[in-house]
């Protein structure tokens, strides 16, 4: 090979820059398409935000309805409303919720941390516990401990999230009084930052565990079957015959191969987790995004609905990218294939 150094680096530069440009274009395109679809979906649903307000006020007249409609921008034709909305999205302006009298960005910003904390904790619990239990069950396939783990994970999978949440509250809050039943922090008490952290953690235990349960079960099942499949492959026999210890085989050979499908599913589900959080946030009065969107949907608070849908879409896109990256880390073949 007689290529000059600069040519090589230039080529590489282009190889990196071009995909990024393409990727950004794709990202923006996808987001705009999603935004348009969201807009059409949201407005296609029957119901009128102005009537909702009237219905909850116990009194209404034509003047109030007309005022509110003008204020919400609902008196303009749909294409005009859509154009206004897309223009805002491009300028990263999520609009203003007249219902809550605040900018949508502020509403989302104050709720997002609580939801991220809840879902990330639940996700970590589900993933670690699920994978560990799955491996334990997989390597003991057919024995009684495997059967027990299988039963437990099936039970967790079948249980409705809200029911599990309520039962945990009954046991740990009402009967034992160990953990707070709802809320995210004790209200009206002066606390040092460290105490506050502990207080939030205590409040986090029950909702995060409830939310994690279903996913934990899924990951455990998935890991188990994947482990069983990998265990019977030739390279494991080779490793065994090389005299590697069981622990070493599991960690470096079985798990690394078995975890790929789990990563795929987990990556897809990370987005869905936020959706599942709606129920948990309601049961545990957790002040997160899930409840904000639930209320917004009921009230047909269009700017808030659209804002959250958009933020969620972006989160899902980003999560997919992260999943891709993790794939490449775990399995170098993916990167190779992608390059070729």
């Amino acid at each position, binding site marked *: 090979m007689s290529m000059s150094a600069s040519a090589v680096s230039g080529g590489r530069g282009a190889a990196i820059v071009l995909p990024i440009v393409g990727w950004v274009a794709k990202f923006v395109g996808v987001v705009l398409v999603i935004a348009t679809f969201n807009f059409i979906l949201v407005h296609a649903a029957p119901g009128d935000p102005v009537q909702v307000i009237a219905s909850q006020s116990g*009194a209404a007249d034509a003047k109030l309805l007309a005022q509110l409609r003008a204020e919400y921008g609902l008196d303009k034709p749909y294409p005009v409303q859509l154009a206004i909305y897309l223009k805002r999205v491009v300028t990263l302006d999520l609009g203003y919720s007249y219902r809550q009298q605040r900018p949508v960005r502020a509403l989302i910003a104050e709720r997002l941390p609580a939801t991220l904390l809840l879902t990330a904790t639940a996700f970590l619990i589900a993933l670690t516990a699920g994978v560990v239990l799955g491996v334990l069950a997989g390597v003991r396939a057919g024995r009684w401990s495997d059967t027990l783990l299988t039963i437990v994970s099936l039970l967790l999978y079948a249980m409705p999230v809200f029911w599990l949440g309520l039962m945990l509250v009954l046991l740990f809050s009402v009967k034992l009084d160990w953990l707070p039943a*709802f809320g995210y922090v004790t209200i009206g008490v002066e606390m040092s930052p460290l105490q506050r952290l502990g207080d939030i953690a205590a409040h986090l235990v029950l909702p995060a565990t409830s939310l994690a349960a279903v996913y934990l079960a899924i990951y455990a099942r998935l890991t188990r079957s994947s482990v069983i499949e990998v265990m019977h492959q030739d390279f494991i026999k080779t490793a065994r015959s090389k005299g590697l210890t069981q622990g070493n085989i599991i960690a470096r050979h079985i798990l690394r191969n078995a975890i790929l499908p789990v990563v795929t599913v987990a990556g897809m589900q990370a987005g869905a987790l936020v959706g599942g959080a709606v129920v948990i946030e309601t049961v545990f009065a957790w002040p997160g995004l899930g409840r904000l969107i639930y209320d917004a949907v009921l009230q047909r608070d269009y700017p808030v609905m659209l804002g959250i849908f958009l933020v969620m879409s972006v989160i899902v896109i980003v999560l997919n990218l992260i999943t891709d990256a993790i794939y490449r880390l775990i399995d170098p073949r993916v990167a190779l294939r992608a390059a070729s």
Partner: protein
Amino acid sequence: MNRREFAKLSLAAGAMGITGFPLGITRSAGQAGGTLNTIIQPEPPILVTALNQQQPTLTLGGKIYESLLRYDFDLKPLPGLAQSWEVSEDRKTYTFKLYPNITFHDGTPLTADDVIFSVTKLLPETHARARGIFVRVESAEAPDPLTVVFKLKTPFAPFLGAFDCTTAPIVPKHIYEGTDYRKNPANQKAIGCGPFKLKEWVRGSHVHLVKHEGYYRPGEPHLDEIIYRVIPDAASRSVALEQGTVQLTQWSDVEAFDVQRLAQLPNVSMTTKGYELFAPHQWLELNNRIAPMNDKRFRQAVMSAIDRKALLQRVYFGLGKVATGPVSSKTRFYEKDVKQYEYSLDKAKALLDDMGLKPGPDGKRVSIPYLVPPYGEIYQRAAEFIRQSLGRVGIDVQLQGTDIAGWAEKCGNWDFSMTMNLVYQLGDPAIGVSRTYISSNIRKGVLFSNTAGYSNPEVDRLFEEAAVATSDDKRQELYSAVQKILVEDVPIVWLIEQDYPNFTDKRLKNVITTAIGVHETFGAVSFG
């Protein structure tokens, strides 16, 4: 506090209660200090009651905003911001004398100008219920900073009943005058003159109110702070009450099916008083425009086919009373001597036969969709009860689910056959009752108007005369007449005068003292 101390305190409070409260300003009895934890559900969008009249906004905003009068359980006026008031002989001039030293939360004194601005400028612009009343004001004057004189164009009997803090909250003129009221940035701070002011609002979690130090009633408020917690799940709300995390619940915080169980708790007491101004009437709304519901006999048949006593016991767990007509027995001008509709399937069938609505081969006479309002479990159960009841006389009711937005749109636009509705009486038939029956209030797109589409010139005339009649006797006569006609015509199938439970911690004193109950200002509320 141990039990003995508690007993002593309640004795002391009881003894002070006996002396009674003379008119005028007195230091109210009660121990100072403490935090009241309660529930707000659903979370209100803003706290300015002048701009938003959703139920939770009124409950919470009642602590922040006050008005000229309060009303006892019989809807008789009591002093509020106004220490006294006079009504002229011709019932057209109302003079209110304010208490001195009233201040807003920002320290500015409240004067007659703020009252006039609120009542004649801001509220008619922003408050649908107040608009109907205050547009009748011809002029308002302030001869001195503590006196307000309203002159009406024509006499309007319910005028004196419109000054509770949910109908006429007084807002600071210096903050709102000349601004776009709804977009005023001060709305986030919710500056009123009530006994409590907003300290912090963590959305989705809680609203924290603290004592307004400059409150005009000596010694009040007794409580240091009130925390309204947002608890969306009904089961969690019941747990909160059981555990003592909250000391007060209101409206539907506790679902009807949990009421009997929680009423057994040793630390709380339950009352259904304090809803007299609202006096919610639960009814089955029939679209009078559509056959066969346009026939009086059909509506009478429906009235006879539903065992409303059983409905009250089975579905509402006894929380309420069977409604006998358009006016609630808890409010003024109720007429009990009207046509009675006893539960009778035979009578119902006879009426339907008489109409020529004969059963088909499958036993069904007619099939009618029923829009189930999405306001919780009770509405679903009531719908199922009604479907079964009407099924027995051959009326096939088909339940349709929807959400709040869908229900409100369909109901407002007359796009329904049968649905349930809960409508407030608002203290006077001229405000809360006539709106459902008069022809001039048949307005498409407007909820709580005459959505059933009933129209009867005689009813229109009686309601109109009663609203402007100057003596209560005359009004009673007119309202009695109109109630008799309406009960005969059954434009609406009245079901239940619904009660709502307030659970209060037994240590709490003076919580439910007026016709607006939990919406009241709470300055006199105390622990012990």
